[in-house]
């Protein structure tokens, strides 16, 4: 998935604009705590940074969530769960990948069961670099994502829908079986 096949900006319609405005102001998130990154979430949620200011609240199930956080390295076994959860989220949905591990494997770059690039398997809208990213970086990422949504640039979910087969093929290269 080297080139971005979709227009980077979703064409503007008035209705879409309102929808995007609503989406951006009410990001319900599900955080998939794969690794150490989860430790950075409590400060973000609590009174120091308080992400609820922006309408971002943690949700218990992907059905209700708009935003998925993948907070750390992704083992092949975990990936299957991530994909399932991602597919259970409802469009429009956004993914933020935490730290260097989902970008390039990070310190696990030569591990046999850690995937190197999350973007090959599910579309990631935003990466936060760092090992680990500080809460400030997380807050920044949220704001960046909100901006992207507003501008119609965060369209990973459309990408996933359009290139579903390719994504699936990539995923199935990792998984031997889907149903276990």
């Amino acid at each position: 998935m080297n080139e971005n096949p979709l227009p980077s900006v979703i064409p503007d319609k008035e209705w879409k604009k309102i929808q995007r405005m609503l989406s951006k102001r009410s990001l319900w998130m599900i955080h998939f705590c794969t690794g150490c990154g989860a430790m950075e979430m409590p400060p973000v949620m609590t009174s120091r940074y308080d992400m609820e200011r922006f309408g971002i609240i943690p949700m218990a199930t992907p059905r209700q969530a708009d935003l998925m956080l993948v907070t750390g390295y992704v083992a092949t076994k975990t990936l299957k769960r991530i994909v399932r959860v991602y597919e259970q989220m409802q469009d429009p949905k956004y993914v933020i990948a935490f730290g260097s591990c989902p970008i390039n494997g990070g310190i696990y770059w030569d591990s046999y069961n850690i995937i190197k690039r999350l973007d090959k398997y599910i579309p990631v809208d935003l990466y936060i670099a760092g090992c680990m990213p500080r809460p400030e970086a997380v807050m920044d990422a949220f704001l960046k994502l909100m901006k992207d949504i507003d501008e119609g640039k965060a369209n990973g979910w459309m990408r996933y829908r359009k290139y579903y087969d390719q994504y699936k093929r990539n995923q199935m290269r990792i998984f031997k079986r889907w149903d276990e």
Partner: protein
Amino acid sequence: MDALTLFGIFILLPLVGALLSYFGRKYAPIIALIFVAITGIFLYVWYGNFGSYTVDIGVKLNLTFDITTWFFMLMINTVIFSSLLFAVSADLKNAGGFSTLMLLGFTGANGVLLSRDFLSLYLFWELMSWSVYVLILRTSGEYARRYLLFGVLSAYFIIMGIGIIYYYTGSFLYEDALSGVIPYYAWAWILVFLILGFGVKMAIIPLHVWAPYAYSSEQPFVSFLSGGLSKLGTFGIYMSMYSIAGVGILDSFGTFRGVSLLGYPFALLGAITAFVGTILAIFQDDIRKLLAYSSIGQLGYVMVGLGLGTSLALGGALFHAFNHAFFKSLLFLGAGAVIYRTGKYKISEMGGLGYRMPFTFLFVLFAIFGLAGIPLTSGFISKWMLYEAAIEKKFVIIAPLMLIASVGAFLYSYRILYGIFLGGLKEEHKKVKEAPAPMLAAMFILMLPLLIFSIVPGWILGWINDVLTNTGLKPIDYTQFTYYSSIGGANMATFWIAFMVLFFVAVAIFIMKRARVVNQYDNYFAGEAPSSVALHAAHNYYKPLKDTWAPMLKYSVDRAYEKFSKFFVDGFYEIKKIYTGNPQDYAAYLGIAFLIFLIIGWWLL
């Protein structure tokens, strides 16, 4: 119409049907159905054609056909009709015997309702009682035995009541009982015996222990037993308290805020029954037992109404009995359809069948609405009447028990819905088909009155009003769509219009977006694969509640009876020792007996 026509249509015709359908083999339920339909048609035709008759079969059977009889017969006729319709496709073993016994029970029920003297009442009561016994025997001898013991207990209570009346009047006729020769303290005994006797059929606590077992038999029969025959208990109590004794005699025992002191304990007993039955129903995993306890609980409500005895309460009791006849039969038939298709009784072993059997689900859902008293069915109105009757008299023990029991009803209702029809569909049930058409038709017939009388309660309240005035009570306050108590009232027309409008508002918001249907396994299990997760959470569903109630649940009326009977049986073994088997002892008995006889003879001289 003369005596023989009435007797012929309502008693002899079902008897003939019983005889014929025994040889009907597979088609026996259809034959029985035809006979029931004929009596049903006559019931319809003869509405308003009321009168009293006498038939002589060696003993004089005095019959009366009036609005009370008609009202109850309507219930029983519809219920047995749909039960038999259900049985047509239920592939019962020995369907001939089944239909015969059903019709015998039906005959007995008709006879009880028609009778105007105690002899025929008792005769038909026993006929009904043993045919039910044999029907239960088809499933389990032990259950049948439990039923029969209580059936006979009920009959003997009734006979004690009848006997005391007979001592004073020397006649079996109802109207002779009212001639004033019976002193009021005797009435207390009579009424207590009669109420207890009929109360057994209504499964009033502590006489309820037969019910969970009896109701575990074949569903088409149980639907008739619970829906139809248990109403005879209602009828019997209604008749003995308000028709035979009458309000004047009831009030002669003193009144507690306008309610007879004789009726009040039974109302309290009814409220306790409602509460206990409901609580026990919550913990059942066997669908048949659950419905049985629910039936006990619901009839407790009826008992409250009968005990309170105001017009509103009695109207509520009659209406609730009517509703119960329909929704409980419907529930039993629905359970029967599910059991017929899956062969399972345990709620936790089913699940997800609502997607495979949508019509059954809808019918059962409607029955549940009736059971829980959701205002979309007439089940609400009868409960409303009973509550208001208790509240307007300021009964602060009866009313909360009834109210909390109805909250408990939500719990077990949802257990039925979730455990059977919702939740995960099991792999082995993937191929389950919708119930056969006759079953669905049977359920549909039972559903209709619940809906219709919810929209237009005035129709049925009219009949109930006729029943009450025929018994000599004050009429209830109602119009076509509304009904009132002294403290409130409700308008079903407004309710339905408002509900419809608001439902369409909700639908309008709802259909703005399309929804995609996903596989039932596409659920959120924290990303886990569905095959590794138990989808159906119905096993031991109310465990936390059960844990909290555990100290209470260890007391069981059932076990108390067992202890009681064991005590007596041990005594029997002691008595048995008199028959030593030694002829010398026996000869000695003879001598002693002769002496005793002689002494008593001399003494008497």
